[in-house]
């Protein structure tokens, strides 16, 4: 029901080690393929993920390559998909499931909130659920209603869930592989608008770097990006804090501000839970001013949390209130109106202008 679903990830077939143009969706596809290859307990299922390869083609070719036991279609029932994945994870597998769109994960919320999030705790850590719930989320792609929700707050508010959202092609690869190795349930939010964003990457290096990063010297597992925010662009005057599809918006705003002589630092949160207080607070303290950017309605959102944490922890460093540029507190608009709703460069720059700059600055 979306106009974008016939686009296919330009998954590279270039030789490893070569520079390759990889889409975000292609990077996810690669991560899934590499994870399926690396670990026989990994498997992937959901609606239209088998023969079709997913409506966004993220699972393209996996059923063929790994067989119908490792990547397959299920009956059309999201609570069923997540509930069955929980059972598989209880019994030695590492299921990765796809919810076809953000709002279509809602039928699964009971399974996610009452079971996936709580199983380890309920059983005193005896039953872990290594389980990834992939959800294409957020808007900007002209989807009809119920296809563009930014639903991260529901998950981030729920203790026991790990909530990740990559914003770059390389992170799409790294973070999905992290998520699949992670011992606990991950809600993996894929910004739809970025699916066909491209980067030139060296596939061999990407994989090697990732492999190097998976364990520390003692052999304990390490994760490239879980719990780690990243400075996407350095800057000194104010900090833009974003995640998912808002990261490119923040970067564009910083670029525009630079032209006007204002140096904006951009932070990509990436890991909503666990949250990287260290990096975020250090960044805000450096600049004393901050704007948080997110597509979701602002009320009781992840953006609210970021603002609250910053003022709790950086109060005396702040030269101005931390501002938010978020979606309005409205249901996601119809395609022709969505651009009024989404945070854009102008709104970010407006907010930056309001950060109580002294006259002479």
């Amino acid at each position, binding site marked *: *029901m*979306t*106009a*974008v*679903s*016939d686009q296919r990830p330009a998954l590279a077939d270039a030789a490893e080690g070569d520079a390759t143009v990889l889409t975000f969706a292609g990077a996810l596809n690669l991560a899934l393929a590499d994870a399926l290859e690396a670990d026989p307990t990994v498997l992937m299922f959901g*609606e*239209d993920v*088998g*023969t*079709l*390869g997913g*409506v966004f083609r993220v699972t393209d070719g996996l059923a063929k390559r790994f067989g119908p036991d490792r990547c397959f*279609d*299920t*009956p*059309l*029932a*999201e*609570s*069923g998909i997540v509930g069955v994945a929980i059972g598989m994870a209880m019994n030695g597998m590492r299921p990765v499931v796809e919810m076809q769109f953000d*709002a*279509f994960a*809602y*039928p699964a919320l009971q399974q996610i909130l009452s079971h996936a999030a709580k199983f380890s705790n309920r059983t005193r850590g005896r039953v872990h659920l290594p389980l990834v719930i992939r959800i294409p989320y957020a808007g900007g792609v*002209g989807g*009809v*209603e*119920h*296809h563009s929700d930014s639903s991260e707050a529901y998950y981030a508010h729920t203790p026991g869930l790990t909530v990740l959202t990559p914003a770059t092609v390389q992170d799409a690869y790294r973070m999905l592989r992290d998520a699949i190795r992670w011992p606990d349930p991950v809600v993996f939010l894929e910004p739809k608008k970025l699916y066909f964003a491209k980067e030139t990457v060296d596939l061999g290096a990407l994989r090697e770097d990732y492999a190097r990063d998976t364990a520390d010297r003692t052999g304990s597992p390490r994760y490239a990006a879980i719990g780690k925010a990243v400075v996407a662009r350095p800057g000194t005057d104010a900090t833009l804090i974003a995640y998912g599809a808002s990261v490119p918006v923040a970067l564009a705003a910083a670029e525009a501000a630079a032209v006007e002589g204002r140096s904006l630092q951009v932070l990509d949160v990436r890991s909503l839970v666990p949250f990287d207080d260290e990096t975020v607070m250090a960044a805000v303290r450096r600049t004393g001013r901050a704007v948080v950017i997110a597509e979701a309605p602002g*009320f009781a959102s992840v953006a609210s949390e970021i603002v609250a944490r910053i003022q709790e922890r950086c109060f005396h460093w702040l030269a101005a209130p931390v501002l938010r540029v978020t979606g*309005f*507190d*409205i*249901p996601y*608009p*119809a*395609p*022709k*109106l969505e*651009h*009024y*709703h989404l945070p854009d460069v*102008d*709104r970010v720059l*407006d907010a930056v202008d309001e950060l109580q700059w002294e006259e002479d600055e």
Partner: protein
Amino acid sequence: MDVPTRFSGPAVQSLLPSSEPVQLIDHDGNRAAPQVTKEAYPIPDVDLLLRGYRQLVTGRRVNQQASALVRQGRLAVYPSSFGQEACQVAAALCLAPGDWLFPTYRDTVAAIARGLDPVQALGALHGNWHCGYNPLEHRVSIAATPLATQLLHAVGVAHAAKMRGEDTVVLAMCGDGASSEGDFSEALNFAAVFQLPVVFLIQNNQYAISVPLSRQTAAPSLAHKGVGFGMPGEGVDGNDLAALLAVLGAAVRHARDGGGPTLVEAHTYRMEAHTNADDADRYRSREEVAQWLPKDPLRRMEAYLRTRGTLTDDDAELAAAAAEEVAAQLRNGWQQDDVDPLDLFRFVYSNPTPQLREQAAQLQEELARADKPDAVGSTPSAPQKLQPEGGSAR
């Protein structure tokens, strides 16, 4: 409450579907050979069939025109009911004006057959707003996207009507895929427990996007789900308008007479891709699709009516002309995108919250600064200020 109880026997058998889907007209447009069906389904009278035929012609044309509009970029997306027009038309024609229809995204032709303005009916797919019509006007609910959820709304509408002693019947549509959702089962169960006047119509078009029926169910048929809720299930050839009208008509009468809900499974086929955005070649062969061509519902009904001499060339021309008119309406629809961006805030609550008023003011100010190129709000006819709309419910 005593154990043991006897379950089976005639009561159970009456809830099971006929031993094969009911067919009244065969693929060639002839009266089908008599079958063993659980009810005697007489062929609908000729007036109804003629009305149905005309709607089939219009429905087919709507499907073609809407797909063309998508190719031209004037509709964002269109889930076509090409090949399923008999189900669409029968769903509308079996209802009385006071009844309710609950369509899905694929059921615009049914909504149009029920009397909706075609441009309004396709409004959501144009992208201005989520729904282009007033659901209360023709008693056609907003086309549902979250699968199977609308079936519960249909049950609630029926429950309210029954409480008030009205003789409203509600027809609720869904696909084969949707029958796997929990809400499907909950809806059937509520309807059966409260003996509500709901007819559930599954258009089993064999696919849910790419997923074939065999991945949705291992049941002998979807109509066999009825007995598990204590409601009769029936199967019908979904490309046979006459059979659909007969079976749905009986179910509607049964409901109106206080007999409670019925589950009807129409066996049909989605001739086109899921939507224009889908590539059906990835998951089914063209040979498979071709096998369904001879079963085309429109051709069949036309052959039947012509053979009987009921349909003349003139009638057919008139039907085609009426269909062309609807197609023209669609082509001329949406000449302008006259939607006020401040509408984003107007309908979220009857009484807009202080938060929404602030946010509306912010957008209005942005629009006034005219830095949004296509800002309707920044034209001279500035959008009205956001006002509470009063507290009354409707």
